[in-house]
Every structure is written in C-alpha cells, then in structure tokens.
C-alpha cells in the first residue's frame, strides 16, 4: 500500500491542459471571449525545432523547476527497474526512472522533478512506449500527505527551502487533482488551479488564489497519445489549444515557474520538444494481424469512419474535424465547461499572459475527431476513458454501465482491443470497500457518461470485427 510513494507526487508534467472561466476580477472592461467554431480546424504556423535536441531537453531539462531534494528522494524511492531507464540522459538523469529529471535549484540543491513522461509514457506488451498516455495512474489519494511527509528526510536549510516550495505547490493543487476513479487524469484541473495561483502578467506565485479556482472534483480525462500531434492543428480534446503548440505545452511548467524570465528561458527550447513529439510514430501492433480481414475492414472503415477519423496508408488524409458535442453525443461536460461562464476567466488568463503572446485558448463547443494511428494501444476510449474497448465503441448497447478499472496494462484482449475488465452490476454507491470504490468506473456520474459515438451501431458483427482487425494495422 501507499506504493510509488514519492514518484506519484511529481505529477505536474502532463501536457493535458485546458483553459476556461470568468473574469470578474478584471478592472478594465473585459475583452470579449473568442470561441472556435465547429467544423474543420485550420493549420497554423509552428516554430521550427530540432527533434533530437527536443528529446534531450525532454528527458534532462528543468522545465518543471521544483521538486523534492535528491537526498530525500534517494532515501525513499525504489531503485528503478532496467526498463524504466532511458538512453540519451546525462548526469543524475542516467540513474533516474524515465518520469523524473534531475535538476539543480538556484541555491545549488540537487532536486528531482517530474517530467512530461509521467503521464505521457506507458507500457504495452511489457515495453515502455514514449508518447503513449499512461492510463493507469492513481490520483485517488490526496498527495499532500506524501509530499509533506517527505520532509522527515530533508536535512539542510537549503534543501528545506526547496522542499517547502514544492510541497506548497502540491498542497495548493492537491484538492483539485484528487480523482475518484483509477486511471483518470486530473491535469486539466491542475492547470486551472495553478493559473489561479499565478499572476497572469508576471507569473509570480501567490499562496492565496488570485482568482476563483476550479471546482475541486476533476472531470475525467484520458491521456491521448503524443503521436497524434503531428496531424492535429489544435491541441486538446476540444481543440482549444490554438496557435503555437510549443507555447501551449509549456503551460505545464507553471507548477514551479514564477517569472516571465524563467518561462522565456524554457521557451528557447520548447519548440525542440514540440518537434520531437511530432517526430513520434505510433508503435506497430505487436500481435498477429489477419491481413485478409484487415483489408475488408479498411473498406468498411473507409465507408463509415474516415470522413471524421481520416484515411491511412498511401493516400493518408486527416480532416481535423471538430464535431459539436450535441452531434457526437459523447459526454458533453468537458467541452461545455470550456465554453461556459466557468471557463471565461481561464481563457482570459491564458490569452493575456506570456503564454498568450503566440498561442490562444479558444475552445469550441465540441470535440475533435482524433487520428487513429496506434489507437489499439490507447484503451480505454473517448475523451473520458468511459468505453473500455473498441468493440464496445463500435456497439454502444454493449458498453458496460459499471466496470472495474484494470490496475495495470497486463491483460490485453486482442479481440476487442482493450484491457480485460470486469463488468459490474453496481456503481460506486454499491462498492464493498475503498479499493473497489476507486476501481469502479461508473458511467452514471457527471462527466463519466459513455453515450454517443454511435456510428458503429448499425454495423453487423462481421463488419465490426473487420474494422477492429484493420485498426490493428494503424
């Protein structure tokens, strides 16, 4: 119990971000909020970058510039397994697990900080895949206890200063990142909470929120794979991330970044990281594929799916199509909050901050149909992870209302393209113990609905099986 103690604390590297909310604190007349329309999303110029330099920066640099002292970390965390070590790392990073970067603070203290891979690297078939969203993180516990109690291993005052800064940040966002279900990622809510604690002009940290923070309970969000980024013209499920993608991604650094100067320093190499992410390709399906069936599936897919999801292979095309939530019918809460009154203050914060210089928060009342490269690896499906398999995604009546979330990516079902789950006949209110409670995915809860995307319901079982076989080839 209480495993992965320290590493679970260091979770602010995720790129999933969204920006919402109101601006009643403004002294000047508020600028009108601009929302994006549904329909095709246009491409925008991106700053060039060096993918190789981007990888080095991703796994070595201090874009999350606070963390616990290394001395305390080293006394509490397990030695990483060989499969958790990455190539191309320098100095202390060589011995750290893939999701941590070793950095040095301004007062000379060696720290460990979370990097993006905490959320954006996952295991499939026993192998670590950079860019695969980690769908098995457990944010159900309050992280303040863990970060505070690490203090018993902190000795010197210089180390204590750094520990306090990091622990203060964790304490500030902890109420907003505590989920009620295993696998749910709270990075959206974490980002909003961090915005509330930073002055939008100077990025200075404030112990007390400078604007109203988000509601404490995060809406469920699944972590999308990075290899989609090269095709998508806008970031995030509701395509609210417009303009310069590198600047958008940098928002993850505001856990610890407290000045524009510090942010500008990270911005010098952020385009390299973007270039690296866009160089990533989906992995190859590691199990056998029935080529004949897949060929049949390609035809069915072309006729029924490609208008929104794109086509693949020789004449690949991705339409970057944003679909209204009323039309797609999937859970609307994430998109609705972004374009509602609650989202205005965050849109204004972002657009008037350093980040808004060359990027924009511009949500739309809908969701972008994602590219499906490597989709077989990304279960569970939909933006909220409410559908455990592709088979269920293509057949909405078969979707489980309540199911037990798997604890690890170890039991893959090649027939359905998802992790084996246990369907339950009761939801969270019927949970028999705390462990079961956090594992029950309850689609009757707000934001957790598994409705919509009924575009496969009219297909027969053979056609669905053919599409599934085809998707293995993407």
């Amino acid at each position, binding site marked *: 119990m209480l495993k992965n103690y*320290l590493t679970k604390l260091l979770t602010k590297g995720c790129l999933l971000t969204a920006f919402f909310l109101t601006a009643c604190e403004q002294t000047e007349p508020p600028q009108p909020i601009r929302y994006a329309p549904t329909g095709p999303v246009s491409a925008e110029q991106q700053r060039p970058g060096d993918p190789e330099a981007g990888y080095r920066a991703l796994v070595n640099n201090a874009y999350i510039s606070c963390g616990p002292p290394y001395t305390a970390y080293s006394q509490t965390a397990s030695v990483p397994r060989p499969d958790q070590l990455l190539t191309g790392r320098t100095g202390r990073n060589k011995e750290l697990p893939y999701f941590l970067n070793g950095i040095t603070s301004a007062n000379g203290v060696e720290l460990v900080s979370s990097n993006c891979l905490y959320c954006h690297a996952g295991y499939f078939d026993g192998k670590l895949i950079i860019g695969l969203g980690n769908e098995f993180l457990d944010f159900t516990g309050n992280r303040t206890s863990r970060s505070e109690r690490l203090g018993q291993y902190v000795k010197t005052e210089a180390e204590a200063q750094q520990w306090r800064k990091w622990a203060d940040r964790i304490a500030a966002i902890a109420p907003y990142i505590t989920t009620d279900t295993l696998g749910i990622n709270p990075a959206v809510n974490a980002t909003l909470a961090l915005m509330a604690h930073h002055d939008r002009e100077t990025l200075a940290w404030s112990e007390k929120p400078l604007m109203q923070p988000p509601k404490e309970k995060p809406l469920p969000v699944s972590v999308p794979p990075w290899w989609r980024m090269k095709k998508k013209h806008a970031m995030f499920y509701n395509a609210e991330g417009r303009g310069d993608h590198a600047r958008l991604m940098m928002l993850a650094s505001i856990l610890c970044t407290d000045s524009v100067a510090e942010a500008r320093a990270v911005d010098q190499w952020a385009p390299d990281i973007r270039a690296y992410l866009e160089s990533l390709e989906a992995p190859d399906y590691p199990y056998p594929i029935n080529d004949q069936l897949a060929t049949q599936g390609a035809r069915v897919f072309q006729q029924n799916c490609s208008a929104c999801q794109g086509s693949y292979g020789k004449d690949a095309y991705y339409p970057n199509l944003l679909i209204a939530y009323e039309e797609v019918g999937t859970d609307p809460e994430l998109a609705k909050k972004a374009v509602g009154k609650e989202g205005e203050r965050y849109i204004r914060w972002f657009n008037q901050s350093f980040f808004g210089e060359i990027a924009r928060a511009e949500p739309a009342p809908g969701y972008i149909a994602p590219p499906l490269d490597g989709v077989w690896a990304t279960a569970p499906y939909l933006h909220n992870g409410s559908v455990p398999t592709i088979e269920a995604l293509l057949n909405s009546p078969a979707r489980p209302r309540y199911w037990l979330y798997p604890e690890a990516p170890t039991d893959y079902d090649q027939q359905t393209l998802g992790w084996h789950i246990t369907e339950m006949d009761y939801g969270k209110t019927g949970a028999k113990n705390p462990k079961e409670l956090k594992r029950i995915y309850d689609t009757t809860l707000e934001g957790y609905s598994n409705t919509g995307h009924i575009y496969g319901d009219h297909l027969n079982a053979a056609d669905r099986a053919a599409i599934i076989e085809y998707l293995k080839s993407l």
Partner: protein
Amino acid sequence: MLLLLILSALLFGLLQHRQGSEPVRTLDQLNWFNNHGGSFIIPIDQPLSFPEDHGEHSGVQKELWQFSGMLRDCKGKNYGFQVTFFRLNMGNDLPQRQSAWASRNIYWAQLAYAAEDGDRLILKQRTSRDALGLAGYLSDHADLQKLWLYDWQVQVLQTPAGQSRFILQLADKNDNLQLTLQPVKSAIEMSLIEQMKFYGISRLLAEGSLQIGGQSRTVSGVAFFDHAWGNLPIGGGQLVWNRFFLQLSNKQELVILQSRRRDGSGTPVHSGYLIDRNAEVVELSRKQFELKILEYWESQKTGIHYPLSWQVNIPDKRMTLIITALINDQETNDEFVNWSGTVQVAGEAAGTKVQGSGLLQLSGYEAVP
C-alpha cells in the same frame, strides 16, 4: 577500517554516556551512517508474510520493533510500558570476516515504564553489537525467532494453531518485565514510503510480571506492536510528529499519524486507521476526523511544550475521544528528545461510553525561545 573506527567511536560514545560523561551523540552518528553508510537492501514490495516478517530483515539499513501498552496489577494500579529494539546495519558491503569480533549490526534497546502514581518515566537502555554473541537475531526454525541484546530478549513463538506469540524478557538490576503477548487481531500494513515496510498489530493481550525496585507484581493488560524496517528516518527532519496508538474498551483501536512542519508553514496532515472489533480496517482520510489540542505541558528539563491532552472527533463514527497522559513526564531527552508515553482515553463511540489506553509519541518538538 574507517567503519570499524566509527563503530568503536559509536560504542565508546554510548558507553561514555552510560557512565555519565559527555556523550558523543548517537543521533549524529546515526545520521553519519545514514549519509555515508554502505549498501543496503531495500524492502521488497510484496505482501507481508508471518511469522517471517516478525523477525529480522538482515540486509536492510534499519529495523525497529516496539511493544507498548497498559498493564494493571491485582490492586488495580496501572502501568504504561514500552519495549523497543532497534537495529542499525553498518553496510552490506563490509568485508566478510571470520573473527568472532566482527560486527555488522549495532543493537539498541530500551525498556520504559511509568506507574500511574509515579512522577516520571523510568528508562533503561542498552547498546551493543552482533559480535561475540552480545546481541543478535536467531531463527532456528519456523516456530521460534529470538532477538536479544545481552540478556534482554524478544521471542516469537508459533502456537500449534499457527498463531504467533511474543515473549518479552527484560531485566535490569531490580527491575524486570516478563510478558507474554497474544495477538487478538491480525497485522495491518501502514508503510509510508517505498524504502520502508511498516506494520502494526493493534491489540495483543498481555500477561506476566513487572518488578520495580525489587518488588514484583502480576500484571495483565493490552498492548500494541509495531515493526518497521528499511530506510527509517533518523530524527524528524523538517517535521513534528504526533502519533497515536489507542485501544478502546469497545474492542476498537485507533491509529492516527499527524505531522506538521517545524517552521509552522504549510498545513498539518494526518491519516488514520480505525480497526473495528472484527479486525476490519477502515482507513480514515484527513477529512474524516479532526484533532484538537486541549492542554500543553512544559518539560522542566528541556523547556519544550508538549501537547498532552487531545480531543479526537470522527463524525462518521460518532466518536469523540479525550486523550490525556497517564503521567506528564514521559519525555526521553538523552539522544532523541521526544515524548513517548502511555495515555488514557475516555469518550463516546456510536452513542456508547468508551474508555481506553494507548501510546502517544510526540517527536520533533523544540523549546520555545
């Protein structure tokens, strides 16, 4: 060679202390080992297995066994007791030596007790190393494990029914504690970090004898056992800790671990476990209960103000408990300055009056300037 010199210094320092001269502080030396010691095994992330895990885990850096409880004699007089064994591994990379003088571990043990009409905690301490049979751990077979330091010892015996039973035997001149402890409930794992394993048995029935100043009495009562191994923190670092291990008359037990920063910044955090009469464990989140300090006591020796009277509220369980020290002066101020002593409990649980006793440990406190 360097390690041997340090070991000599450590033992010499402790002996100096026992003889009343200015000690070389054990805390400093333990910290030295903490920062410069050799290689150690990190506890394996696997479920606890008994009786093996009651015993020693030889490759890990530090290990702590602690028994505490409240005993009552036939006249109804109460005595709190604590028995602690601590082992420090000097490093698995020490060269193998055949000499009987060769040492790998330092052992430290403490017997502490307090009578309800006494004025202070009585402390007896011993230190030695695992050379020449002075101290050590032995597991001859699955039915017997033995941990000893000179003639002080803890034995873990297996009953024919497969249950563990603990035998404590600690004698010091005219003082002598002999107890048999029978677990009533199973162990609960409470590990807090990856490099440490920590479990407790929340209720053991205690029977035996307690001799104080040559006068022996038959005693019985309830006890708590906790055992931790791995990278245990030396001192509290930046934290002040308040730990409660309470046993109630309704057969429930309550464990509360509360910490706050020494500099007063940040927000105190607390976690807890409520073990019901059927041994079912409910993990209490920080929002499920509150702790309130009712009264402080100032140590005349250190000037530290310790909170010795507390109120615990668990609204979900309709539980309100008032916790008070059996006696105020249960401070240990030699190497690790802290307050670790027996408390009494009175209050209500689910509409019924309850009483109880337990252990309160307050560490990391400093004198107010």
